């Protein structure tokens, strides 16, 4: 595969490290965590449960052998066709409503 890194241009995917679904959201880290209770649904969603779609997937890759930026890549898991790659921090700032 060829991933269009927004910083470095198109590169072979062997330069990148894959993490997974970019749709999961870390819940409040100060949520009450009582010893001995099973994980809450938001934490299950964050750490374990995945939609795992056969189709368009927004996912995190890091350009480890390049600029080291984390990227949000939009890719179809059936065809591997990539429709976009964005700088993850920029996406995350927008997500969190913070100025870039």
């Amino acid at each position, binding site marked *: *595969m060829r991933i269009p890194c927004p910083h470095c241009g198109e590169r*072979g*995917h*062997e330069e990148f490290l*894959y*993490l*997974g*679904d970019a749709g999961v959201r870390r819940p409040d880290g100060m949520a009450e965590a009582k010893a001995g209770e*099973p*994980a809450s649904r938001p934490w*299950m*969603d964050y*750490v*374990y*449960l*995945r*939609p*795992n*779609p*056969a189709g368009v*997937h927004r*996912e995190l*890759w890091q350009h480890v052998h390049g600029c080291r930026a984390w990227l949000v890549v939009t*890719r179809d*898991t*059936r*065809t*591997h066709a990539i429709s976009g790659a964005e700088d993850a921090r920029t996406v995350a700032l927008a997500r969190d409503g913070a100025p870039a």
Partner: protein
Amino acid sequence: MRYSIFSLLSEALRGNTGWQPAWRDPEPKASYDAIIVGGGGHGLSTAYYLAKEHGLTNVAVVEKGYLGSGNVGRNTTIIRSNYLLPGNIPFYEHSLKLWEGLEQDINYNAMVSQRGVLHLFESDGTRDAAARRGNAMRLEGVDAELLDREGVRRLAPMLDFDSARFPVMGGLWQPRGGTVRHDAVAWGYARAADRRGVDLIQNCEVTGIRVENGRVLGVETTRGFIGAPKVGLACAGNSSRVAAMAGLQLPIESHVLQAFVSEGVKPLVDQVIIFGAGHFYISQSDKGGLVFGGDIDRYNSYAQRGNLPVIHEVMEAAVALMPSVSRLRVLRQWGGIMDMSMDGSPIIDKTPIAGLYINCGWCIGGFKATPASGWCFAHTIARDEPHRLNAAYRLDRFATGDLIDEAGTGATPNLH
């Protein structure tokens, strides 16, 4: 028709014109006592054991393609029970025992070949980890031997003992491990299940799961609705898609794993050899091809094919381990979709929906589990509770933390 010396000879004399279909091609009935979704190795063995062990024969297996079209025909055919953790060893050992009696049981030669599995280590750390594992196996009554370098050399003299980047220090040897002719497993279970009355329905894709009041009623398919009070999902790489039809989200990602076969050569590799430092494993089929593979492609995928970087990685490991394979040629490469679970271990359990059962999360090691997976899943479906052997493969273990993480890599499916 039963396969015997007599049937073979009589068919030979009449020009092989009297062989019967290995299975019927039935139209789906309106309803069954149980439906298994997925006509792969696990689904077919589940149907077989439902009929054999639990007398449940009014059963349908629905398969979107042809029988055995998934990972049962796309793997590297290895069987072994050299696991580390208590939740795993008894299950895989049960599987190995079922393999050992499989051919007589189903009257089909799946070529179960206990050639032995040799897992190499290269450092003190990996040696001690192998010892821990071998001891855990022995505690469970499973065969395991720790070989030193010379012991490895006696079994596999073609390895690189002189100039390897990761020196061969020794290996964990399980003599009862080996290989099985993968397609024949699907066909053998299919034929045996069919003979016990199970309907095997090919080219029938499940498009929906009908649930009312928290209870499953049956499945919508491309050939119409089929009702059943019990529905078992054995969909491997497609587990997430099918479970989503019932509103379930799973701790699973689908990843592609490639496998390779070389041109046939005269006997060269006698055992199954696993090269830990190179993420590589190899054996030789009865036909002569070297069958080998490596790591997954490490990104979510439903395409049954891989990419070049992993091909290079696997070939590098092949030559690094066994320099004499360099001039042999790789004949075919293919990919299967692995249901990579979040802790690297499978799930065989009931679901929050009554009558709906799930069997998934096999990661890259589902083939060896085929008999026990079906056996335990059949028990879970028939009795509506897990068997002792699959008690650890709970769906809720991710919430409770009772993980079975052999690799210790945590919730990162592409690292298991």
